[in-house]
C-alpha cells in the first residue's frame, strides 16, 4: 500500500493498478452474468468480461513486453470477435423475442432434467 502512495506522488502508475481495474471489471461481468434476468443484460455482462481481458493484454504489452506488439494485436482481434459475437447473440435474442415475446432468461427453461 505504501508503495502505491509513494508511486502516486512520484508520478508513475504501477501495473497492478491496471490489472486491478480489469479484474474488478471481469468479476463484475461474472456477477452480472449470474444475476441479470434479461438476456441483453447478460450480454452486457459478457462485454465487460471480454473488455477486462483486453485491458490485461494491453497492460502486459505496454509494461512488460513493449518491444513487440502481441498484446496490442490480440486486443485488436478480440474487439472484432466481440463484435461478431454480439451481432449473432443479438440476432438470436431478437428471434427469441419474436417467439416468446420476452427476453427474460427465466423463460428459457423448457428443456431440462
Amino acid at each position, binding site marked *: 500500500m505504501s508503495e502505491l502512495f509513494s508511486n502516486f506522488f512520484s508520478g508513475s502508475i504501477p501495473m497492478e493498478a491496471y490489472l486491478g481495474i480489469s*479484474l474488478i471489471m471481469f468479476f463484475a461481468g461474472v*456477477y452480472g452474468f449470474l444475476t441479470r434476468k434479461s438476456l441483453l443484460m447478460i450480454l452486457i455482462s459478457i462485454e465487460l468480461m471480454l473488455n477486462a481481458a483486453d485491458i490485461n493484454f494491453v497492460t502486459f504489452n505496454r509494461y512488460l513486453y513493449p518491444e513487440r506488439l502481441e498484446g496490442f494485436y490480440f486486443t485488436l482481434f478480440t474487439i472484432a470477435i466481440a463484435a461478431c459475437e454480439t451481432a449473432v447473440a443479438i440476432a438470436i435474442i431478437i428471434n427469441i423475442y419474436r417467439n416468446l415475446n420476452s427476453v427474460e432468461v427465466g423463460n428459457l427453461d423448457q428443456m431440462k432434467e
Partner: protein
Amino acid sequence: MAEQIIFYVLAVIITVFSILAVTSKQIIRSATYLLFVLLGTAGLYLLLGFSYLFAVQIAVYAGGIMVIFIFAILLTNRPGENVKSELPIRRLVALVTSVAGLAFCGHIIYWNVKKVIQLPLMEELTPQKLGHIMMGTDKYQYLLPFEMISILLLACIVGAIMVARRR
C-alpha cells in the same frame, strides 16, 4: 501528476460504472453505463500510448456494438417496465462467489506478476508500422489472423441475418 489524476479518474469511472452496469434495474441505463465503461477503457488505452487502439475501441464498441445494443433494447423493451431482479439469495451466492474469485485471482496475480512501476520506453507506433505488422507474414506479423477474422465476420453476418430475418 496529470497522468495519475487522469488514471485514477478513469479507474473510478470504470469501477463504478462496471458495478452500476450489472446492478441497474433499467436496461437502457445498464447499456449507458456499459458505454461509459468502454469509453473509460479507451481512455486507458490512450494513457498507455496506444492511440490506434483508442480509436478502434471507440469506433467499434461505442460506434458499432453499442448501437446494436441500443437498437435491440428499443426493439425488445416495453417502456416503463423494469427488469425483474433475481432472488436475493441467488444474488448473494453470486456475489460471494464473484468476490471470492476476485480475491483469489487478485491474490495470485498481485504476488506473481513482475513489479513494474515506470512505463518503459516504446518506439512510436506510426500507422505505417502498424499497417506493416498487420500485413506481414513473418513471426509477430498478423496477415493470417486478419484474413481469418474476415471469414469469421462474414460467417457471423450470414448467421445473424439468417436468424434475424423474417420468413
